[in-house]
């Protein structure tokens, strides 16, 4: 807020302060001096020129494109499609896990924290679910959406393919609550390390929204023309 000198409103009558005219705003200023902050034409200089402006580490306070920060805007934008074997936190991984071309999204084997609800909710192939992974394996802070591929009513285990939220929005959905991600199945087209059953790897699910590396133990492999089909269990993020 300007505390020295007379206040000169711009006279644009733009309405962006919440008052139709500058005169209306001026009328109210003696009672509520803080309203002056709402005039964007005046506050521009204060906002942009004063040290009181909230600052962003790694953005405006460092020279443009100085390389000092891990996530320069241009690098962030170039992340997609690169094979640099680093996740979004700069950690190395061994391979990307792709989903099977015939699947609508990454295939996961999951178990609701209350496995009984698989039966109680009468889950069927093709239904849309939402839920959040929680627990000792791949806990993730983001709610997932997906389509049911298989249901085991005896154990409560569900196989689903994670998809986007459009399905739930258009078709309706059931809320699974919390679940544990028990296994992933997918395709490895390129790897930095030789793959072997029984070995643990760091990998990057191609569709992971956070682009964080995961680790898992390969317990099934099948080499095909398209790549190596793998099943990973014992999953951890990081």
């Amino acid at each position, binding site marked *: 807020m300007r505390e020295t000198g007379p206040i000169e409103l711009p006279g644009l*009558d733009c309405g962006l302060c919440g008052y139709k005219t500058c005169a209306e705003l001026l009328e109210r200023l003696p009672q509520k001096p803080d309203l002056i902050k*709402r005039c964007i034409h005046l506050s521009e200089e204060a906002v942009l020129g004063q040290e009181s402006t909230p600052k962003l*580490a790694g953005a*405006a306070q460092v020279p443009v494109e100085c390389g000092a920060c891990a996530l320069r805007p*241009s690098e962030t934008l170039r992340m997609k499609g690169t094979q640099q074997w680093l996740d*979004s936190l700069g950690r190395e991984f061994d391979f990307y896990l792709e989903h099977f071309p015939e699947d609508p999204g990454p295939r996961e084997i999951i178990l609701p924290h209350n496995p009984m609800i698989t039966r109680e909710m009468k889950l069927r192939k093709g239904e849309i679910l939402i839920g959040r992974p929680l627990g000792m394996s791949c806990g993730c802070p983001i709610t997932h959406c997906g389509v049911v591929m298989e249901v085991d009513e005896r154990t409560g285990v569900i196989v689903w393919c994670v998809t*986007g*939220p459009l399905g739930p929005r258009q078709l309706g959905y059931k809320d699974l609550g919390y679940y544990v991600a028990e296994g992933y199945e997918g395709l490895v087209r390129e790897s930095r390390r030789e793959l072997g059953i029984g070995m643990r790897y760091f990998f990057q699910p191609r569709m*992971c929204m956070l*682009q964080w590396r995961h680790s898992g133990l390969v317990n099934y492999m099948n080499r095909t023309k398209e790549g190596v089909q793998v099943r990973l269990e014992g999953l951890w993020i990081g």
Partner: protein
Amino acid sequence: MAKRIYLDHAATTPLDPRVRRAMEPFLAATFGNPSSLHREGREARHAVENARGEVARLLGAEPSEILFTGNGSEADNLALLGALGAANGGHVITSAIEHPAVLETCRHMERFGTEVTHLPANADGLVEPRSLVAAIRPTTRLVSVMAANNVTGVLQPVAELAQLAKEHGALFHTDAVQAFGKIPMEVGKIPVDLISVSAHKLHGPKGVGALYVRKGVEILPIVHGGGQERGLRSATENVAGIVGLGEACRLAGEEMSSEAARLVGLREQILNGVTSAIPNVYIIGHPYRRLPGHLCLGFAGQEGESITLLLALDEAGVAVSSGSACSASHADKPSYVLQAMGLDPIRARGSLRVTLGRFNTEEDVGRFLEILPRAAAKMRPVATHPAFSAGLKEGEGDERNGPD
């Protein structure tokens, strides 16, 4: 069935019935090609030129400085590619928070040898003029910074940025698709050379946009053909759409200040209502330097659940937008805008965008404020400790790890 509440006007706006009425003759009896010399053609030409006048009036420009395009993205492409083509390459400066219509065009130009610098945004979502000062070079041909951001609604300091570009001999383009018709933009007062606009963001039809090109600024066409629009955008004009854009501009100009004040009032009502009902909510972007009807909210400790909130709101009859999508198609795309503002990847996915428009009422806002807390209660917290959902702001995160 209760009326749905549409609060996603940054995505698109409903057609104003007055705009539709203005367009109707050109979808029926008045169907001529504006390039034809007969009466049908002349009627269409007259309508196109009237609309050009309305667009120009809203910008304080000359009608001859307005080119009609197929949409805002095309206007952006024409501005960038056209200006660089005329300048025969060089260095371009844009910001990290631009719409993909600008960013992807810049990426395309990089493939052909143009050097591109992306200016950062600060925690308020503002591109600071001093970052432009640091980035500008003698070879800089064009600076492109949007007038208002489509995610946060934050208004950029276009006047200062344009002045800096001018002082350094570079052209200045602004993507004003979100801001046009909502805030004053007088080309006589700000030295902007190129402005992209779109009709469907101001209660006009989809499929039509325009590019303001300051008199004397040379650009090359990107669509070649019959030479319409001064040879800069060949193709038979979308007459009905252009008439709709013109009418939308006329209405926006007439109602701008009263409508802005009304929307700011509704916006503040939402903000006050939400912050009192949901303690962990926080506003993303500068609190005041924003479009009048635009709010971008985050829910501390529950950011990953915004899809749950979006779905619950949709079921309850409210249309809003979310940055969160656990989606195959969006999987590797946390909001680059929010990341550029310094939000971590989880927060960058967890925003809720609430954008008001001309036909929203106080009643809509009241109902939204009834529905939102109930819907928000369905969100599962990432963590149970209250510190995670205490509404901490960016930069205060260290406190979360402190003793109880």
